């Protein structure tokens, strides 16, 4: 029971944070001296003053700032806030773009795990050998390499030279598959109905939707499209995480309970299992933060690899003074931060049963 109370309490304490995030992003946007409405309908040479006035009224730009803010937040939450440049609801734009970022984040996270976990364990096992040195080098490389330069070189090696990926478009499942998933809740009886809503939301990510319908060629194409950016994201953070795992594994291995298990004569694999499990807390923290930043901050990767994701949308919204877009993106990022932190806390309890949720 404790964990449910914990989650509810955490969500309630995060509501003010979320509102604060929205308010700060609004204030930052508000102090822009330029006239956003003019920018939306085509710069300084606007002659249609009536249109200008209408848009001003529609977005509450003729009211004081608090009314404007209230309007932005409430209409965002009810889903009626329109992106003035794309002329469709902000929620629509977010739900088109976020799944792409989720795909990239999941693949990037997989690459991070594939790189960091084995290397970290090997570096701890073969301490002060060439493997340890490689991990140290990779960690330093990841934190010293300007990300865009790594991207350029990987594009040079894998796109220009060997053509083993491509850099345009995002594969989607077929229309009938999307319709089938969207129609799922209405075909099922009430209790199963709620379960299928989860499938609808997960199915919005093209890769998962395609898997659900059995369209494996789409999954393959998605991987073929996204493996290079995912690999480069993994390379940038993998070494650092491997090094944290190595240090915390070495700490755990030199502790007294490990000495005790050795004295009892447990097999080697068992000893390592105990040490590994207990060394995971700092690793899970960093992995969680890393996944959160993949879900929100891969702006440069999305720019260089031409991926129409959420980071790109955030960047374009800021540049175009797109207030509704900025507020929508901010809301989404705040949610991601909260959920990722919640998941990290729940993982702590799974790793270490001594941790209690109070």
């Amino acid at each position: 029971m404790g964990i449910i109370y914990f989650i509810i309490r955490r969500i309630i304490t995060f509501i003010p944070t979320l509102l604060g995030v929205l308010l700060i992003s609004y204030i930052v946007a508000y102090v822009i001296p330029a006239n956003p409405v003019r920018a939306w309908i085509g710069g300084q040479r606007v002659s249609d003053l009536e249109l200008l006035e209408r848009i001003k009224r529609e977005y509450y730009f003729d009211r004081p700032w608090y009314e404007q803010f209230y309007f932005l937040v409430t209409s965002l939450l009810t889903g009626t806030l329109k992106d003035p440049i794309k002329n469709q609801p902000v929620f629509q734009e977010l739900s088109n773009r976020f799944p792409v970022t989720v795909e990239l984040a999941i693949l990037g996270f997989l690459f991070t795990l594939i790189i960091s976990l084995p290397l970290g364990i090997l570096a701890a096992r073969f301490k002060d050998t060439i493997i340890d040195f490689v991990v140290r080098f990779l960690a330093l490389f990841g934190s010293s390499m300007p990300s865009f330069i790594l991207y350029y070189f990987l594009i040079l090696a894998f796109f220009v030279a060997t053509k083993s990926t491509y850099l345009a478009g995002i594969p989607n499942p077929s229309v009938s598959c999307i319709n089938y998933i969207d129609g799922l809740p209405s075909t099922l009886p009430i209790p199963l109905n709620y379960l299928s809503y989860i499938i609808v939301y997960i199915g919005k990510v093209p890769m998962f939707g395609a898997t659900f319908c059995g369209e494996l060629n789409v999954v393959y194409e998605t991987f073929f499209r996204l493996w290079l950016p995912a690999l480069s994201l993994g390379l940038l953070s993998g070494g650092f995480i491997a090094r944290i795992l190595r240090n915390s594994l070495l700490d755990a291995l030199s502790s007294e309970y490990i000495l005790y298990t050795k004295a009892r004569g447990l097999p080697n694999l068992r000893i390592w299992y105990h040490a590994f499990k207990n060394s995971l807390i700092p690793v899970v923290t960093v992995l969680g933060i890393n996944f959160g930043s993949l879900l929100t901050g891969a702006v440069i990767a999305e720019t260089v690899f031409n991926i129409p994701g959420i980071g790109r949308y955030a960047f374009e919204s800021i540049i175009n003074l797109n207030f509704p877009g900025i507020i929508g993106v901010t809301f989404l990022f705040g949610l991601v931060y909260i959920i990722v932190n919640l998941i990290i806390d729940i993982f702590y309890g799974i790793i270490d049963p001594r941790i209690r949720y109070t």
Partner: protein
Amino acid sequence: MNPIYFVLTSFIELYVFIRSKINEEWPLKNSSKISEWKLMAFAFSQSKIGVFGGLLVTLFVILAIIGPLLAYAKYDYFPVVDNPDYKLLPPNSELEGKRFILGTDWMGRDILNMIFYGIRISVVISFIVIILGVPLGIILGLLSGYLKGHFDEFIMRLTDIFLAFPGLILAIAFASVLPSRIYEFLESNPYIRDFWLWIFALEPEHSPHLAAIFSLMIALALVWWPGYARIVRASTLSISEQVFIEAAKSLGLSKTKILFKHILPNIIAPVLVLITFDLGTVPLLAAALSFLGLGPTEPVPELGRLISYSGSYFPERSWWIVISVGTVLFLLALGWNLLGDSLRDVLDPRTRRAMEFKVGKK
């Protein structure tokens, strides 16, 4: 004798000499501190990567100071205007008796020359961001860890709000908002403007770009402090429970004295290590921001912008720009990271005790 150790100890001796001129008793009172410093210098001189990183960093700081003096041509002189052949020459090519070791860019400017200017901008940006952001984080962290209660709650919610944003996005937002305000400020204060133009080695007619550089720095500083506030608060919480703080309180010392004289020196080591790492990270982030098109534009020789402009000619006609400028950025960050990696060991008292133990056994 190890030359690095010699240099570092002579610095320490110099400092001790100056302090002893002010107050004769100082070296006697602080003799244990001085010997600890010397042990640190020894530990540092023994770590190869630390010495390598330190040398890289020294090289870059010296280049940042004298770089623009080494440059033989102004960054806003475009040879392409006179002779289109200068455009995008590959490395080690010769034209009209001039030799371009690293090639030229799309305006025919020598890349080496641009790098000399660019290093100063990157290094100055990293120092200013740390100077603006870190003290703010340290002070807020100290106060919130020591005072606890409502103030702590407020500051932690504030850091939550800032951390909930991806740093880069928040910096983009600030960097796109700030320039016009800063520009007005700089135009009304010509002395400040000229001073910073001199610092960045820019020409007077490029003062609008100065506002863009400033907005980059302020944006980064604004997203930089929450991390420090968190770390400082956590260490302050554990330190302020200890007996010596209670003793200081019962002696009736003022809060400022307890905070800055008794708590701060005990938590400064991890902060120093973090600062060293961040001095390497800030230039990368600043370059990333100007890569995205925020920050100064043509003709200011910002390294990230050079790369983003050459991206449109990449790879056939501009690989040398990406490689050479990228290497400079990489080495700058690598130097600080290596230094930080070894400082973490040097500043850890356990390493030093282990070292003493080894020497004692011999």
